[in-house]
């Protein structure tokens, strides 16, 4: 009834915050962005191996800590606030839940174990990651061969592909069923890094020109169902929403600090009431979005799946809008320096636009909610 963090959750939060403040500084982000690197290697090692963040939501039987969506949301929020350049979301929110939901027992033991141990970054090559349901279309065809399968197809944009140790590829079998293939980074697929505006999250294209893979590469428990995809994607959306509100908070904190120092007309910018009211409105939006994200996280296990899915849709809507607004205001309230490369607002701004384009537009999420409310399955 009362929604608050447990003392353990509070501790995870405080420690993660302290760690990221030191390790994912502006300088660290710029080392990645300005050199076009895929990620912050050192930071990723710390997070995955030393701090065990990747183990958080993996069930204990696979070597994880068996904690829940709230703990992951806490970490995603903080990672977002520092624009941490690591494949954390793809590994923990995109790939691991899919393995857990649709993977074979062997695959779970092997890969969830490796993820929990911090030995592996993993991503998923959905055909269209911008769709509200990225599993609805499949870009890769899988044909059985004597020794395994032949994979054919191209996926235009795969997040964190160039840094991942493994990519999970949903592919269509001849009988129309969808299978999952796990390809190690050395697996022979063609990976082409794309130059992107948001340099904090790498994207690459994936080409599978008739790639022959062994039968063991197939990791699903026998044809993936829509429900299995949906369950995994709820987690991905929740994690993304948490990251987005974190990035909004990060941009907002930076802005508050700047306008409290910067003087114009003999006053700090923060002393102008019009600015105060805009900041206060942002604070209201943050309160709204954070409540919904953590409320949805807490309800995830308890509420029925349909209700929970709608809450997560809602969380994505408010988080996407909030993140953009916070970044927009960061640029505007920084004034002249706000649109320079040297200051950080543009990093948050580019990330905001790029994140909003993932896993469904606000409109698409609201369409889903409306369809449920009107009980008519969608726009008539």
């Amino acid at each position: 009834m009362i929604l608050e963090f447990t003392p353990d959750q509070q501790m995870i939060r405080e420690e993660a915050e302290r760690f990221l403040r030191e390790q994912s500084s502006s300088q660290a982000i710029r080392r990645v962005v300005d050199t076009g690197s895929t990620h912050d290697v050192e930071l990723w090692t710390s997070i995955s191996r030393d701090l065990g963040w990747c183990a958080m939501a993996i069930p204990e039987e696979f070597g994880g800590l068996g904690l829940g969506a709230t703990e992951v949301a806490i970490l995603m929020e903080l990672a977002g606030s520092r624009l941490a350049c690591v494949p954390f979301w793809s590994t923990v929110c995109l790939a691991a839940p899919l393995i857990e939901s649709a993977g074979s027992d062997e695959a779970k033991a092997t890969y969830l174990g490796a993820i929990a141990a911090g030995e592996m970054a993993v991503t998923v090559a959905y055909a269209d990651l911008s769709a509200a349901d990225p599993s609805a279309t499949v870009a890769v065809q899988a044909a059985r061969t004597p020794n395994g399968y032949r994979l054919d197809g191209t996926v235009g944009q795969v997040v964190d592909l160039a840094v991942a140790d493994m990519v999970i590829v949903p592919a269509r079998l001849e009988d129309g069923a969808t299978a999952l293939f796990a390809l190690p980074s050395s697996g022979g697929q063609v990976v082409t890094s794309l130059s992107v505006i948001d340099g904090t999250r790498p994207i690459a294209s994936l080409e599978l020109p008739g790639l022959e893979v062994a039968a063991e590469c197939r990791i699903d428990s026998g044809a993936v169902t829509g429900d299995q995809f949906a369950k995994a994607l709820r987690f991905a959306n929740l994690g993304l929403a948490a990251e987005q509100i974190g990035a909004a908070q990060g941009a907002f904190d930076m802005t508050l600090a700047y306008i409290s120092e910067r003087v114009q007309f003999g006053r700090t910018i923060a002393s102008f009431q019009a600015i105060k009211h805009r900041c206060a409105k942002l604070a209201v939006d943050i309160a709204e979005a954070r409540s919904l994200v953590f409320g949805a996280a807490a309800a995830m296990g308890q509420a029925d799946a349909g209700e929970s899915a709608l809450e997560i849709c809602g969380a994505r809507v408010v988080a996407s809008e909030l993140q953009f607004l916070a970044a927009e205001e960061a640029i505007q309230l920084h004034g002249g320096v706000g649109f320079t490369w040297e200051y950080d607002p543009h990093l948050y701004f580019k990330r905001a636009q790029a994140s909003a384009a993932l896993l469904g537009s606000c409109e698409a999420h609201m369409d889903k909610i409306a369809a449920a409310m009107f009980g008519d399955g969608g726009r008539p």
Partner: protein
Amino acid sequence: MSDLNAFRAEVRDWMNANLTGKFAELKFRGGSGEGDALPDLRKEWEQELARGRWTCPGWPAEHGGRGLSVAEQVVFQEEYSRAGGPGRMGHIGEGLMGPTLIAFGTEDQKKRFLPGILNGTEFWCQGYSEPSAGSDFGNIKTRAKQDPETGDWLVSGQKVWTSLAHLSDWIFVVARCEEGSVGRNGLIFLLMQLAQPGVEIHPIKQIGGGSEFNSVFFDGARAKAEDVVGQPGDGWRIAMALLGFERGISTLGQQMGFQQELDLIVEIAKENGADRSPAIRQRVARAWIGLRAMRYLAMRALSDEPSTETRREGLAYKYHWSNWHRDLGRLAMDVLGMDGNVVSEYPRRERLQQMFLFARADTIYGGTNEIQLNIIAEQGLGMPREPRGKL
């Protein structure tokens, strides 16, 4: 959890058993915008509640309450609203006056005033705002002068936006008791009977036609010497503490009402074809999102040991719900289309029309949007205070 469920069932059963017969007429009535509807029957209903021990359930047992936990109080509010329980005539007494007396009142005051509140026989209203001190509480001009013979206080001045004064028995009044004092100093917190010479109540007609609010004029009206709460000069502290007793539990009941309004909008849109409009669909979805967020926001704010963050978020609550509700009113009317303009006896439509109009007050009373944003910026974000002018 199972205890809560049992409690929930208890409330539901009681409401189903008692909001019937002559009280059935009260279902979903007396909400904002029509707080003055059916007053006599609603006062009877308060006594019915008292018989079920459902008035003041959050008060400590030694003062006649049930000592319910926060979670139980939330459940009560939710089930009360879900069943269509009418707007509470006793709200000010139960939620504000009672807790203030329990905390600051004398034994004599508790003995004289708490029973009337508990029994639903005495009704209270609030004398804070003044014409020239709408949002500017420090600018109070109503004066209280002590009668040297009796020790009583003679009060002169005007209070405004007093909810249901014309239907209440008592009013608590913040007045200036030290000549020449300014701002927060020199104020006194008085309990005053309304039915006395020197008190005049003028209803204020509102945008929707109802008159929930009043101006209350005092011209040498009398507060007994023993009806001061705290010390003379200490009124600011008492007044602020009183406002703090609103822990926001009732908001979860309020949200039930919002959900009913939203359901009504969806229903009407399906009937009149507005559900075919993509823009309306998106707005309906957005309203649902905002309401869901409101629920979790309230639940976070109920934490017993709020962090800096949840405290900051708590400041956002009034701004969020009031603007959400105001927008819901517009959505309702846009769904009704041209029919929204026509006044009819069609009760669902009328409820939404009244909501549309009266929700305009939501962002004004109890601290305007502008005051809320100042508070969030200054207290929540630590931004510089707005300078006071010298006009």
